[in-house]
């Protein structure tokens, strides 16, 4: 399974090694046929497996909720003092604010009402914006999905494409070049690359004029097609940053799983059948090698929502990541809690989805 390839993945500490669904996919296919036929039995086993995964996800989500409550209570500052920003405020006013945000309640009461509210989608009122947290989140979500979703599609495709080429001709000049290049970009801090791109392509340096905006999503006041072009123009630099830093991992995983397949007998069979080299690769090697990459892609999918906090901050992108950074620096407790929950939920859902879909893609795991 993927366990062997994990050290290469240390950067994504939450890439999931070995926790593959293969281990839990029900009885060995080809075992004694039951009374209801193997297909029905497999289906039942699969549904049980999927149900177990969903229950597990629900438990994880609840744990996240609990953590986000207690973790952020540890911030050693008085939220009300923060809110008033050091202005001179009377004790009565402070007490009123405390009451308004429920901070005068005992801890357990705060906890139960927090959990109850959260389950109904209410994460409280932002200290900073004085609007419901959930509105802030849903407001910033589209910008994040647009930016990181675009980058995700691009870097996954680029990583798989280059990884396949590298793995298929491993040791060749182009493989050595692409691997070295990817490893280098993999080591580059994303925010720094973003800043550098801003200096070179937005501010302009030497003979290079500033061609792109330094940040934000739009310049405002545009409609229709020109609005779309404007947003795309704003997206270029952040997307390039995210793709540059993100494609390496997919490339490396794809490359090493293709290398694992290279000596396989079924590839010799495919060649013996008279298939062209690119068909052997496309039809036979890649579908097998894609399976571990697929797991990684789902882990990354979770991060699409989690956003790229740093890149959004650097490019002043009005998404969840930028919101999180702002909320932390206040600190805007309800907003931080809400965002933390949303980020973790996205990752948990993506992982669960990967677990549930994996058996459908790999016939060996049975369905």
């Amino acid at each position, binding site marked *: 399974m993927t366990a062997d390839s994990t050290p290469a993945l240390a950067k994504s500490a939450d890439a999931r090694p070995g926790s593959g669904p293969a281990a839990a996919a029900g009885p060995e*296919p*080809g075992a004694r046929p039951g009374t209801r036929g*193997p297909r029905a039995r497999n289906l039942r086993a699969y549904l049980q497996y999927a149900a177990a995964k969903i229950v597990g996800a629900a438990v994880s989500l609840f744990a996240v909720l609990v953590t986000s409550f207690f973790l952020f209570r540890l911030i050693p500052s008085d939220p009300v003092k923060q809110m008033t920003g050091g202005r001179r405020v009377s004790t009565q006013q402070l007490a009123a604010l405390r009451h308004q945000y429920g901070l005068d309640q005992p801890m357990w009461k705060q906890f139960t009402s927090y959990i109850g509210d959260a389950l109904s989608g209410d994460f409280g009122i932002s200290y900073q914006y004085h609007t419901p947290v959930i509105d802030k989140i849903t407001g910033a979500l589209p910008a994040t999905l647009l930016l990181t979703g675009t980058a995700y599609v691009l870097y996954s495709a680029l990583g798989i494409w280059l990884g396949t080429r590298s793995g298929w001709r491993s040791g060749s000049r182009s493989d050595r070049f692409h691997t070295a290049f990817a490893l280098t970009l993999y080591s580059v801090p994303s925010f720094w690359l973003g800043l550098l791109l801003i200096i070179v392509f937005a501010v302009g340096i030497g003979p290079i004029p500033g061609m792109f905006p330094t940040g934000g999503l739009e310049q405002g006041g545009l409609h229709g097609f020109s609005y779309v072009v404007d947003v795309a123009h704003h997206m270029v630099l952040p997307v390039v940053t995210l793709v540059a830093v993100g494609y390496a991992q997919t490339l490396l995983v794809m490359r090493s799983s293709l290398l694992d397949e290279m000596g*396989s*007998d*079924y590839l*010799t*069979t*495919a*060649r*013996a*059948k*008279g*298939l*062209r080299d690119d068909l052997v690769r496309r*039809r*036979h090697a890649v*579908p*097998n090698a894609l*399976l571990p990459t697929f797991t990684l892609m789902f882990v990354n999918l979770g991060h699409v929502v989690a956003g790229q906090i740093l890149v959004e901050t650097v490019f002043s992108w009005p998404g969840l990541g930028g919101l999180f950074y702002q909320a932390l620096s206040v600190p805007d407790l309800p907003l931080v809690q809400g965002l933390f929950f949303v980020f973790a939920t996205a990752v948990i859902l993506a992982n669960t989805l990967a677990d549930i879909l994996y058996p459908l893609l*790999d*016939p*060996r795991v049975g369905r």
Partner: protein
Amino acid sequence: MTLLQVRDLTVTYDGGARAVRGVDLTLAAGQKLGVAGESGCGKSTLALALLRLLPASAKVTGEVLLGGEDVLTMKWGRVRAVRWAGASIVFQGAMHSLNAVHRVGDQIAEPILLHKRATREGARRKVAELLEHVGLPAARAASYPHELSGGQRQRVMIAMALACDPELIVADEPTTALDVMIQAQILGLISRLVAEQDLGLVMISHDLAVLADTCDRLAVMYAGRVVEEGPAAQVYADALHPYGKALSGSFPTIGDPASRFAPRGLPGDPPDPAALPPGCTFHPRCPVALDVCARDDQELRPAGAGRRAACVRVGRTGAAEDVRARVRGQGREPEH
């Protein structure tokens, strides 16, 4: 008509391992040739070389004439056309030779669609036909390899090999991973199909008894060379080369008490193909080696009707050396 003619085939791997060293083989249409030898003697390399399937780093010289055309010098496009349509291979270990993520029906249909310009529907019908031909229900086409038993997978491999009606089938250890009952079934199936369709067969195995049962002629390989060749029954029952003797002797005859009391296995391992011993490569393990064996390489030479062997003691009457050999042979006896 000659279907396959291999002339002076040599394969040297990257790193200097000489896996095949000057092999000559001839196979007439409809004939069945067995290639025997221990693991590491170059027989699987030989099978891959027939269709030019070796890695590009391996150096291959000689000729492989398939229907009169040299596979080793033809253009790659022609090689791909010959693969499977002219000659197909049944690989050992069908679990790994089949692609785990494709349905077996699609895998059988793949060469049909590629070589026969068939429609999807036509290919599907042909697949059903082939599966029933090898004794599997047509519905098995929808299965994945892991859903089949070892014997069923090997049947799928055979159905796949027959897909494009080739004239030659190369079976590389087709029964090695199977248990004895299934082994017999698969061998029976191969024999039946080959006879029915008048195909040429090159069967590779370490099991001389299996080959003797299935094939017309036998070639025994050692360290990348054919050391003995002849009609299957004769080679099995009365090998001329000491290695052929040892190989047929290493499978005891069931019911023969003599073979129980005189185990005739061969000590030692086949030589490292990257560092072959001088002279006859078999001499370090040979129970009847002469002094000359350590010095002179032994060529394959005629040894009676339709038989050839590469041993100094074949086709030669050196009485003095014979005696010496017997003395040495006795001297070795207590070792086992």
